[in-house]
């Protein structure tokens, strides 16, 4: 299946949010990540496995706190969208967290239209671009098992968006459905 790649310029629940710890470096640091369970999360054996959101590469300078906030915000936008994939393909609510233009593209995109609801926890790695102590761009590298088989893999691109709950919106996507065995 051809990949869906669009740029125009996003919500789900982060069941498990993991953030790296340690210093936020400069110039494309690629620190190893450590996954931590969300504080206060219910570790019940019956609960669905949580999505995993981790910090990836940091390009530029960003304080540790702001980096963690950016990863959490962008991660929530991405996983909230995943949770909305059960909605009908033409339902604008299916593309929650997308900018208006990105939503227009997504509604018409055959790869995205064909996506089914998730069938397991997602893994999301958030690469950030920092400038003047603020996160100004994010790339979410994702993998999401789908109910109808295969995994959704690729990247979502986000920029800060004032006035939104999570502070970020998806403006572009580069996704494909992988049929590789999990």
């Amino acid at each position, binding site marked *: 299946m051809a990949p869906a*790649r*669009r*740029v*125009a*310029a996003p919500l789900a629940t982060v069941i498990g949010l993991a953030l790296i710890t340690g210093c936020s470096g400069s*110039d*494309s640091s*690629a620190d190893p990540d450590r996954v931590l369970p969300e504080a206060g999360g219910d570790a019940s054996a019956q609960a669905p496995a949580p999505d995993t959101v981790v910090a*990836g*590469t*940091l*390009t*530029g300078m960003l304080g540790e706190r702001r980096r963690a906030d950016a990863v959490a915000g962008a991660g929530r936008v991405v996983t909230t969208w995943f949770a909305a994939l059960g909605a009908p393909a033409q339902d604008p609510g299916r593309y929650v967290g997308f*900018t*208006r*233009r*990105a939503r227009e*593209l997504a509604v018409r995109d055959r790869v995205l239209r064909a996506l089914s609801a998730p069938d397991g926890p997602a893994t999301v*790695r958030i*690469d*950030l*671009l920092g*400038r003047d102590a603020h996160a*100004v*761009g994010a*790339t979410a*590298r994702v993998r999401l098992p789908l109910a109808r088989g295969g995994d959704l893999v690729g*990247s979502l*691109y986000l*920029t*800060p*968006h*004032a006035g939104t709950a999570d502070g970020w*919106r998806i*403006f*572009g996507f*580069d996704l494909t459905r992988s049929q590789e065995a999990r």
Partner: protein
Amino acid sequence: MKVRLALAAVLTGVGVLVPDAAPAATYAHLVRTDVGAEIGAGRGVATGTDVIWILAVGSDARPGEDMLRVRGDALQLVGIDTRTGAATSIGIPRDSYVAIPDVGSDRVNAALYYGGPQLLARTVAEMVGIAPDYVFVTTFPLFEEMVNDIGPITVRNPVAFSDPYLKPNGFPVGRLELRGYNAMAFARIRKSLIGGDFDRSANQQRVLRGIQARVAERAQEPGFLADGVLSVLEHTETDANPAELFRLAVAMAQVDPRRITGCVVTGGYATINGASVVTPDLALAQRLGDDARDDAEIEEC
């Protein structure tokens, strides 16, 4: 010395590499024009289309010269349709004799000298019928460094050519792998080409295509695009904001290599006021502009 790819290279192939440890300095200019529109949400999209147009200018400014006030040596109007991944380039021979608004008739590249990027954008807009959203200006030595940084590019050369100064051994016909210097020479040699300025402009488009392909190959490397944006922010004089540049970088990297087209505004030669100039086919320029304006695709040159 480690260098970093600039965002501009992602699209235009006119890139900037800067030493990491060097103090911030201006290596290039990215100017948002007042005749186009910005991309992205939250800042207004006035064109009603999803096509971004960037006028890429290779400047032959010498060290110490203001690259915005010398004559541009290479002019390519590059369009990207962010909905489809299509991209096209309209090559404008630098010696094209055209009307420069509020100045009179002169070579198109003189518009940069007379009025900087804004006047150059207006001049090209009147010639082609497409108003660039941005003008990107940089110099050839930096272009070389950029190609070295992203790795060798591949071009398809249809005609062997050489230059006694830039490339005595010449370039053979076929698929060629070029690094920085050779990419620069491939894009700059003019005199030995049968079609002169027109063929050189076509060669510039071959180089741009090779660069785009190479960048697209590397775009999934974590931090690759962000690194380019950061480099632009630190070393390019620009009025574009960081998030805008990030969106631009993603758009550039998502160009579909199968949907890249390119044409050159051809024409004739003349001597005007003692100067050898190109007399561009303005009807062709307008037709190419009409064809590409809304979808960054050209059916036929």
